[in-house]
């Protein structure tokens, strides 16, 4: 773990030394981590794009084996394998962040050194001579200690900032998930398949889970979450793979969660028109399904 942690702590301290602010250091550090994990993210997004392109094929399967869900599932898996598509691709960016998150969480704690033992540990983690002159790092921001979880019961500005950070973590996690995850596809009988249902439930659980993390872990981690989510959304936009329509609730637009137009990077337009036959007139929400 030290092999990952020590360079992280050193980089974070170096950024602090250059920028003069721990919050700015965490923001820049997050962007650096995002850039480092870009190849993985890009691969996942390509997978999602391929998934979208497969929709007509999947629809054909659903019609061909209508009523035989087992067979549909088998054929879907075969199709995924054939095209090298990961059906859980939408969840991967967030899951990939877990080991990075753990190392980053630890590095923030060690760099901020909130207690004597962490400060003592820091002596062996700084790989660049001279950084010790910046120790201890200033861990106060807007009256809050970045190394500690938000103290909501404290009241005043500390509580306001704490609640805001937790809310921002939940919202940006949800937004990133929605914007970067292909919408679920209804099956021939109008019901979502298991993968889609699972992905959708992930879209609910993930933001709550990260909200829980923001409540329990240090404030520095919440800042990482928020910046990371925003960077993920920006990354999707720059790659032409952001789907903001997916973030608009169906009840607001009076549309089902049927796939909208997805513009690919190459400029292709994949429409799910073929997926909406007269037979699949209802979405899981029970509202009329319209294609665009």
């Amino acid at each position, binding site marked *: 773990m030290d092999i990952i942690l020590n360079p992280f702590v050193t980089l974070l301290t170096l950024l602090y030394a250059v920028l003069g602010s721990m919050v700015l250091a965490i923001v820049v550090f997050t962007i650096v981590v995002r850039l480092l994990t870009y190849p993985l993210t890009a691969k996942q997004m390509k997978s999602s794009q391929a998934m979208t392109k497969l929709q007509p094929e999947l629809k054909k399967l659903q019609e061909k084996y209508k009523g035989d869900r087992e067979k549909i599932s088998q054929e879907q898996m075969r199709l995924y394998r054939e095209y090298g598509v990961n059906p*859980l691709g939408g*969840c991967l960016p967030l899951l990939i962040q*877990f080991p990075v998150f*753990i190392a980053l*969480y630890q590095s923030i704690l060690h760099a901020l050194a909130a*207690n*004597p*033992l962490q*400060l*003592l540990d820091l*002596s*062996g983690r700084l790989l660049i001579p001279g950084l*010790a*002159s910046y*120790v*201890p790092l*200033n861990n106060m921001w807007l009256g809050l200690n970045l190394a500690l979880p938000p103290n909501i019961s404290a009241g005043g500005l500390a509580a306001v900032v704490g609640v805001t950070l937790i809310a921002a973590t939940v919202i940006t996690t949800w937004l990133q998930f929605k914007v970067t995850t292909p919408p679920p596809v209804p099956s021939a009988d109008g019901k979502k398949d*298991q993968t889609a*249902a*699972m992905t959708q*439930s*992930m879209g609910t*659980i*993930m933001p709550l*889970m990260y909200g*829980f*993390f923001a409540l*329990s*872990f240090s404030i520095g981690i919440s800042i990482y979450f928020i910046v990371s989510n925003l960077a993920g959304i920006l990354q999707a936009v720059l790659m032409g793979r952001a789907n903001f329509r997916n973030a608009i609730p169906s009840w607001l637009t009076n549309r089902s969660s049927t796939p909208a137009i997805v513009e690919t990077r190459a400029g292709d337009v994949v429409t799910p028109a073929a997926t909406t036959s007269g037979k699949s007139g209802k979405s899981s929400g029970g509202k009329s399904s319209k294609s665009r």
Partner: protein
Amino acid sequence: MNRLSRFARRASLPGALLLVMFVLSACTGARLEATWGSLSLTGSPATIVFPFYDRIVMLDPVTGQPVQLVDNDGNTRLDDQGNPRIWEVPDAGERNAQVQFYTAPVQLDDETLLFASYAGRLFEVDTATGRINNGSGTPMGGQAVGDPLLADGTLYLGYNQGDLQALDTGNSTFPPIWTLDTDHGIYGQPILLDGTIYTASLDHNAYALDAVTGEIQWKADLNGAATSAPALSANSDALYVGSFANALFKLNLDGQIVSSVPASNWVWGTPAVSGDMVYFGDVSGNLYAARDTGDALELVWGPVPVATNAIVATPLVTENALIVGSRDKNVYWVDPASGAVLQTRETKGEVLGNMLLLEPSDSLPVGEPTVVVSTMAHEELVIAFALDNGERLWAYSR
């Protein structure tokens, strides 16, 4: 059944994520942080007081057993099961409060010890009964890491958050008389000399303050954070203080840096002073000896790689050996003339807290000169070694 299995399949991934969430929260959530206790002696005949983690215990220096409580007639007090009551303050203060201790107590009066906790509370403990007089403690200005200093009814105490306060012990609420605000924590015990308080801070400065008013008389930049308490020279005309600038500094009492000795890494602990010799360690486990020539500090030997991890505790200086505790879970007997290791004794935990040297006397009925160290391992919290040969005399575990 199919519906159930479908549900199970759908719930498997979110369930796994929830499991990860709870495992992570269990690993990193609220829990007691590791602390190192501070050993001290109190009373006559003397007993060892050891506040550690969330409790306080008083130990017999001869046996290492917790002291048994006695009544006014000298009879051992018994609990409901007929067992002797021992001097222990378990789970100090209110339950569920994360009370933790780094510091040694001060003797408030003949019957009361005052403990400053890392949870930001002062506890008055009755020495006769081992009970807390002030319930869940009296709030103070921050988390105590360095030992407090009590002088003339005033308690001088530094906090993890960066303040040094003078508290009025004549008032039961211990109100602050003055506060010095530094940007970072104060980990060392302040020292008092001729009406001046000297201290060093993680904000890279050493300070001299008027003990009555708290007014800053001078502050000196140490080029790095200072965790150690300043040590007074044998002639009481200079201060020695280490810093994260990889050096030990000698300051005169006007706040000017007279001289310094370079080190290989951070100098965390307070140096030991014996005549004109100054001994100190660094966080890499190196040990140094310097001689104060009056005008300068001159390195006599070092860095000697005595240990493989940090030397934080102040070395004990004896006639034939320096006793050095390390984070590498060893206690070393070191030749004062050369820094060579004479013998090593292994412990089960990191040795970071201060050590005691017990010399036999009327008030300290130990059979021979004894070295007492504390560790961070519950299996071996306090250990006593014979000074002469390093024989292990006893160990106290939780």
